[in-house]
């Protein structure tokens, strides 16, 4: 029986809420890939859920447009703390190819605090798992 402390429990059951800002669907499909039998994220208690009120982690994918920026703020305010935010894919982390577009606003980390970035267009499932491991290590204070 492992030592019961808050972080140990929090990192053993991560329910993920997926916020698709204005994603092209590539990132979203890669997120589903992580749940498929080949990678099976449920081994680690990771599960996709539909409501932000149940979430322990929020994946933000896609470019944050003028329409979705205030929604992102609202959703973040609704979430029960502690919540880890992951900027998912090039668009969410650094605006990617939409850097000079008139529709984009600012990167995700200028709107809400971000705990981890997963670059890639789209990131491979291995990269996603690597990102999750980094979030867990950061929460535990190992890196």
């Amino acid at each position, binding site marked *: 029986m492992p030592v*019961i402390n*808050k972080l140990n*429990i*929090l990192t*053993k*059951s991560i329910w993920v809420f997926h916020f698709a800002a204005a994603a092209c669907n590539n990132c979203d499909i890669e997120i589903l890939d992580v749940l498929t*039998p080949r990678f*099976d994220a*449920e*081994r*680690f*208690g990771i599960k996709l*859920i*539909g*409501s932000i*009120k*149940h979430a*322990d982690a929020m994946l933000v994918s896609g470019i944050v447009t003028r329409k979705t920026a205030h929604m992102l703020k609202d959703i973040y305010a*609704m979430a*029960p*703390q*502690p919540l880890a935010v992951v900027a998912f894919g090039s668009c969410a982390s650094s605006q990617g190819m939409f850097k000079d577009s008139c529709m984009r606003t600012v990167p995700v980390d200028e709107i809400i605090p971000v705990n981890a970035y997963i670059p890639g267009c789209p990131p491979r499932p291995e990269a996603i798992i690597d990102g999750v491991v980094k979030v867990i290590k950061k929460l535990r204070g190992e890196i």
Partner: protein
Amino acid sequence: MTTLFHYLIFPGLLFALVVGMIASWIERKVTARVQWRVGPPMLQPLYDVMKLFIKENIVPEHAHYLTFAAAPLISFVSAGLAATIIGMSIFFPSSGFQGDLIVVAYLLVIPALSLILGAAASANPLASLGASREMKMVLSYELIFWIALIVAWIKTGGLLNLSLFAVNGAVGASVSGAIAFALMLITMQAKLGRVPFDAAEAETEISGGTYIEYSGPLLGFFKMSQYIMLVAVPALVSIIFLGGASIGKYVILLVLIILAENTNPRLKITQCLRLFWFFLLPVGLIAIILATLGY
């Protein structure tokens, strides 16, 4: 003092909770194996609940605070009470009283009712949609649930005492009893809110429906009452129709639930209502007639 012990520890809350967590783990593990995955570790349901009790609890601004907060507790307490009475009839057969079957049948409705109450109080359009669906589900499956109970009641010659069903032998062995048992299996699936009857929850469609506004400890209480229901309902079905509960019978019923869950798509709420009222009700009436004729 012993009553409190029975309610809180042995056949009641704690025991039912532990068994329910193991059952929930079996459910997730079998689901994973059906989908050719590895599945979560054994302590996963425990981690889930413990995590929910660490998380922040949010009550929506426009929600009715008292109803919203009370609903999960009512659900947990009444599910625990039902589990206690069922457990007492299994482990301490002499403690049963005439009519405890009726009490259990009523207590098992309360989690669904408190879910409706909590969802309706949470001031969310999707939650009220879920509440309305849950209401229709209760209306549809309770009818068949009681018809199956009536068949068992007729077959055993007016037995209403849970601990005597084991003495009387399996009701499901007769023709009408087998029909009633089949009806009860479908009802059990609906009572536990599992696929194909999870229209009220519907993760992918109305994103959690009735549970959508619940977070932290309150969601934890709902989760725990679900775990208890996962023990209480199959145990009750096993006592009534299979002549007493045992680990083997319980696991068989559990695996049936899990396999039905994994091989069926979700029914729309209209389809649920039609299935229960227009297809299963005539079958149930036929079973009652057969039972009165002695088959």
